[in-house]
């Protein structure tokens, strides 16, 4: 199915392909830079000219997971020799690991990462579950003022987070919910719920009513029909919505910055807080960033079909 084209057109076509490849590389360069910095020796992170080829090392990750302090005098040779490889790497960087008794003190990073997981997974589950039910309701039943309600639901997502954060902070402080997982989960659920209703309503509208009607005629109750017929049909939509809700909750910064401090703090406000003492250690930031991006990158690849559909669909529905 190729039309006759002029030679000039064929040349433009080839230029376009080359341009696409170049632009793609440019877009990926920052991500490559993050990933590569996570494996660089500290000195190479800020070397001039920038280092592209180097011997990768995992020292940044060792640093990421440990509490360290700067050496004030060189470490004694016998102590150094007795140290395991990872501790030597830290000694080499002019630091030593903090210990309580004999056990190495861990940095808060694993905790924060876990917080991110708890909050993102729970809020995603709630938002998608509630959103799916509500979307089904809007899609199948007659509801007075349906469009106004839908617009209301959507409008709750248009506000800058800080606008919502002020009253939420005041309310949370009365009930003691600042810096709790639950507080953050509620915020993220509310934030994602409207999005989830909209996205899911689009998918629900696409599922023919006849499917359930056939099931109802066959003697299913509506609930059975919903769970056995509609939900399986809506899998793609649910997957797309879940991935998006997860990514939004996973990456959220403003609420987490304002509402959490220690117990429930997630990784996004925490990672920028690890700039290092005295001198910025970009390799550790990169290592933390790299690990934090990994789940999302894996998600993106594993579910790219759903993602593409979700992005465009969610937008077009509006």
């Amino acid at each position, binding site marked *: 199915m190729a039309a006759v084209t002029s030679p000039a057109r064929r040349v433009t076509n080839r230029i376009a392909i080359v341009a696409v490849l170049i632009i793609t590389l440019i877009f990926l360069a920052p991500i490559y830079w993050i990933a590569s910095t996570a494996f660089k020796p500290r000195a190479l992170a800020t070397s001039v000219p920038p280092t592209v080829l180097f011997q990768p090392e995992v020292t940044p990750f060792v640093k990421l997971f440990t509490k360290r302090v*700067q050496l004030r005098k060189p470490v004694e040779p016998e102590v150094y020799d007795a140290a395991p490889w990872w501790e030597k790497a830290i000694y080499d960087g002019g630091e030593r690991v903090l210990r309580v008794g004999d056990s190495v003190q861990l940095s808060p990073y694993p905790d924060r990462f876990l917080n991110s997981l708890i909050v993102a997974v729970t809020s995603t589950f709630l938002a998608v579950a509630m959103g799916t039910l509500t979307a089904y309701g809007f899609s199948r039943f007659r509801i007075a003022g349906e469009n106004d309600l839908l617009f209301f639901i959507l409008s709750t997502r248009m506000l800058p987070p800080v606008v919502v954060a002020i009253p939420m*902070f005041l309310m949370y402080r009365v009930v003691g919910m600042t810096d709790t997982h639950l507080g953050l989960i509620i915020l993220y659920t509310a934030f994602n719920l409207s999005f989830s209703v909209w996205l899911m309503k689009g998918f629900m509208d696409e599922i023919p009513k006849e499917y359930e009607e056939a099931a109802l005629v066959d003697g299913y109750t509506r609930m059975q029909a919903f769970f056995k017929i509609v939900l399986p049909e809506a899998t793609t939509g649910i997957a797309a919505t879940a991935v998006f809700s997860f990514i939004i909750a996973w990456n959220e910064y403003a609420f987490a910055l304002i509402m959490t401090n220690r117990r429930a703090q997630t990784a996004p406000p925490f990672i920028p807080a690890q*700039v290092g003492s005295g001198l910025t250690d970009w390799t550790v930031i990169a290592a933390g960033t790299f690990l934090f991006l990994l789940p999302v990158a894996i998600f993106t690849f594993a579910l790219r079909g759903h993602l593409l559909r979700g992005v465009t669909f969610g937008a077009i529905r509006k």
Partner: protein
Amino acid sequence: MLKKKWTALLAGAAMAFTVNAAAATELTIFWAEWDPANYLQELVNEYTAETGVTVTVETTPWSDFQTKAFTEFNAKGDAYDMVVGDSQWLGAGSTGGHYVDLTDFFNEHKLAEVMAPATVKYYAEYDGKYWAIPAEGDAAGWAYRKDWFEDPKEMEAFKAKYGYDLGVPEDYKQLRDIAEFFYRPDDKKYGIAIYTDNSYDAMAMGIESAVFSYGGDLGDYSTYKVDGIINSPENIAAVEMYKELYGFTPPNWGKVFFQEDNQAITENLAAMSMNFFAFFPALDNPALNPNAANTGYFANPKGPSGAQHAALGGQGISIVSYSQNKEEAMKFLEWFIRDDVQQKWADLGGYTCSQAVLKSEAFRNATPYNEAFYQSMFMVKDFWAVPEYAELLTAMNNRLYPYVVGGEGTAKEALDGLAADWNATFKKYGRM
């Protein structure tokens, strides 16, 4: 029916996530992200070894240290049992009910005599009461490149140009001359690195150092009079000097704080660099600073009138009144002020405020910068400590930053504007 289930579910989830609050054998101290916090962690690990009470030092970058702390205070949160808070927080911390009154504790242990006078005045006292135990003394100082200064060729060229010997600057005029002398953009060498970050108190502290050495003040701390003081001729000259120094900084120096100023030395960018003493361990660490052996330190130089002061850094440690573990925290503080602990604190790298330790030869010679630190601690001055200090800081940043970095208007306009802003703020809070 459904609603009940729903709330039950939420409550269940809440329980699942918040069980960790109860255990009393854990103490959390909140501080900013810098080396002293790591030294403190190391110190308190010994407390854990002694008592079994786990003590964790939580940190956050300087840029949002204040925000985080006060968000937690104002939420009446119990995430932190103690906080190593900035000196200017005392007013807000005490009048806001965030800090536990430590006056009895202070008097009982005669801390006013044990700790250095400036640290007691600035880190602990507000409105006649004590709210904190001086923990980390600090002041603004300078690092410089000894190898550049001592290069005979440079010395000769400098003498020829300025008519006096190149050496550690004695006053701001010399500071300026040396900065100008080493400012060679074509060679990627620059004169000086100063604080310019306008997000918290970084630039404010840099300017204060100049203002205080020029013999100026921020205002009358007892009457809240600012007009004529903050915009005095001395202050105008000091701010103009600060702006002039900015002209000799490396490129992209419009929003920098301690890391960048340290990098100015490690990356061979600047001849001299302003920083708080607590940030100097990185410069003394050969693994981080290839020029460690060639880095020297000096205290903030004199102003034209001969006055010599430095902006105060450092913090006292306070107990947060919302803490569930106040008793345990008291016990910790009793441990912390013990002489042997203070000595250990100094040995680990902390800047003790204990007079006995400070004055010891061992302390003053422990690092290349401890001597300069020791001198500085007797000439420090500080910012306002009133509860509304954050608004005062914002105004200062808003007025002075556009002048120093953006080159807008004149120093006099900026300071007149600042005087008006501060006046209005004090009026708003009924202080005058």
